[in-house]
């Protein structure tokens, strides 16, 4: 077991920079999820930790050891790939035993370890099969088996669930979390699926364009996004954003199609400041849909009504901006109907109009 630390990591492919000055810590025995859209550099970061890619500059530590120049075969890390990467010419037993053979372990020990691993993953009856005779879920388990059998210092997982169907993915997600708790191995998990990231992570690292946008506990990242990118990326459906102007005289936020008083939460932050352009953000679950006028609410027109079973996902147009909100499943709404969307107290977000960084919210959120 070991902590993984990267310091000032940069990686460029020719002219294209994939990682820009990335520094972070993957705590010992914890599951850290790297999440971000395709091409954000999360896989590059993982592969650099694995030793499959050399950094352009910067340092990678596993435990206290600087492994920046060490080849992959000397790092004692195990990796699960998106495509599983099982060796097609070997049986499941041989696939799982493969890393142990590299370590020149005694045959009896190999047999014992493989059998134990197969038992943990419930794949004992598959040991004699070849990968092509396995289903997606079974291949996934074998790939996991090959990773855990050698008892590595670090697990690296590169979108390991993305090839499974939705149902199996949810099942395997829970199993993975359970397995990680059981084995207590430092794990770095890469995914582009924010729901997977939220449910699995002890710690979440959100990346975009080769830079870390925010790190922290999943609930903190969700509740207090550091910028508009994080706010929009974490959460499904994503947070609603509308551009607005702060008017210090009247203490209002005014947009193209609304004019509302500054939410109580933000008065302290904005109060006395100059007029500025801002982005107002509010999550769909933090909006209350009313069919009669409410003061301080956003007046919008119903555009689409999506019945989700337990609730309705409503898309309404605020001028030209679409706003999404959840409302109860038995609400009676019609297209083109006028609705008033009021924001729950303490659930609004404000971002600077230029930098898109969150206005220092620590004080505001406490209020």
């Amino acid at each position, binding site marked *: 077991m070991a902590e993984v630390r990267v310091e000032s990591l940069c990686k460029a492919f020719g002219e294209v920079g994939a990682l820009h000055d990335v520094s972070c810590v993957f705590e010992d025995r914890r599951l850290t999820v790297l999440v971000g859209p395709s091409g954000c550099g999360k896989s590059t970061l993982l592969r650099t930790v694995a030793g499959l890619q050399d950094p352009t500059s910067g340092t990678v530590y596993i435990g206290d050891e600087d492994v920046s120049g060490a080849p*992959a075969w000397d790092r004692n890390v195990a990796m699960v790939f998106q495509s599983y990467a099982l060796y097609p010419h070997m049986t499941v037993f041989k696939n799982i035993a493969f890393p142990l053979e590299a370590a020149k372990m005694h045959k009896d020990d190999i047999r014992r370890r493989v059998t134990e691993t197969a038992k943990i993953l419930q794949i004992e009856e598959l040991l004699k099969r070849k990968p092509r005779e396995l289903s997606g879920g079974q291949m996934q388990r074998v790939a996991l088996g090959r990773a855990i059998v*050698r008892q590595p210092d670090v697990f690296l997982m590169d979108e390991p669930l993305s090839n499974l169907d939705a149902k199996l993915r949810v099942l395997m997600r829970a199993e993975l979390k359970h397995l990680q708790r059981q084995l207590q191995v430092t794990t770095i998990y890469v995914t582009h699926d924010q729901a997977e990231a939220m449910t699995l992570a002890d710690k979440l690292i959100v990346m975009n364009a080769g830079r870390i946008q925010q790190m922290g506990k999943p609930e903190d990242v969700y509740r207090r996004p550091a910028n508009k990118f994080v706010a929009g990326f974490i959460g499904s459906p994503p947070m609603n954003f509308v551009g607005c102007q702060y008017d210090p005289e009247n203490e209002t936020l005014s947009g193209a199609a609304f004019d509302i008083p500054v939410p109580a939460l933000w008065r302290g932050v904005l109060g006395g400041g100059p007029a500025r352009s801002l982005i107002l953000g509010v999550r769909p679950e933090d909006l209350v849909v009313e069919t009669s006028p409410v003061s301080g609410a956003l007046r919008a027109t119903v555009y689409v009504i999506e019945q989700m079973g337990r609730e309705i996902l409503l898309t309404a147009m605020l001028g030209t901006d679409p706003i999404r909100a959840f409302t109860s499943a038995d609400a009676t709404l019609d297209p083109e109907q006028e609705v008033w969307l009021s924001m729950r107290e303490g659930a609004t977000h404000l971002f600077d109009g230029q930098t898109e960084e969150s206005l220092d919210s620590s004080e505001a959120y406490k209020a």
Partner: protein
Amino acid sequence: MKSKHRYRYRRRANQVLDVLITLLIAGFCLGPLYWILATSFKPMGTEYLIPPEGWPSKPTLEAYRIILGIPSEASQEGVSGEGVFGSATEVPQAPSLHFLLPIRNSLIVSSTVAVCSLFICSLAAYTIARLRFRWKIQSLLLLQVAGLLPAVMVIAPTFVLMQKFHLLRTLPAMILPNIAYNVPLGTWLLAAYFSELPWELEDAAKVDGYKPFQIFRKVILPLAAPGLFSAGVFAFLGTWGEFILSSVVTMGVSSVQTVPVAILNLSFEFRYQWTWVSAAIILSVGLMVAVALFFQRWVIQGLTAGSVKY
């Protein structure tokens, strides 16, 4: 309805045309081979009959018996037949024809060339397909250019080289140059094959604790079995049929002659005994077909299926 009929008629006409074209091509390729096969079973002297026999009325294995040096009544008495010049020609006793010897020589030369060139080609192809280094494209092009040189162009320098090494009139004089001749094509074939293998497998093996050469041996080579087979068979067949080099470096010494040279000598030495020559050709071709069929068993199609999922 009218157009439906027309469509059907057209489809039928296309099918007939397909079959005709296929038969034409097959006849073009297999016709001569059939003629050689039929001739090899003809009793000596009947190969010049007018009108020619499509298939011998009295098929015999005599020609095979003679070229393989198996004693029989006919061969012990000496055989005679109509030569190309139309006169009855006396030919030497059959037991002096040991066609098994050139077959043995060809097998040794071709299989050694196939194994050695596969070894060199697979390493070169792995380097080109999977490793990063400067002048990669240039080296690949150079290899290709070397492969395009016509055999007659390299024959003189090869002869001099073999002479310097004191290898003339020996099997290595055919083995060593043929290995070199086969490297360009073999490397290209294998490089194309290696480059299609999923990178994740190599990455997985690295993380599992294996170094590049071990990965090559334990992961890449087993997966490239179909490609290795193709390259090996190419090298084997190419060497088996190679004539110019063999005819030059053996310098008429029959104990080191390979099959193509032996067949030519057979036709010269015995005044165009076409039944013998045909039997020799059929043996040579039959062996090749047998080799190809035998090795095909080891090619498991779709070996890479199920390795990675996209």
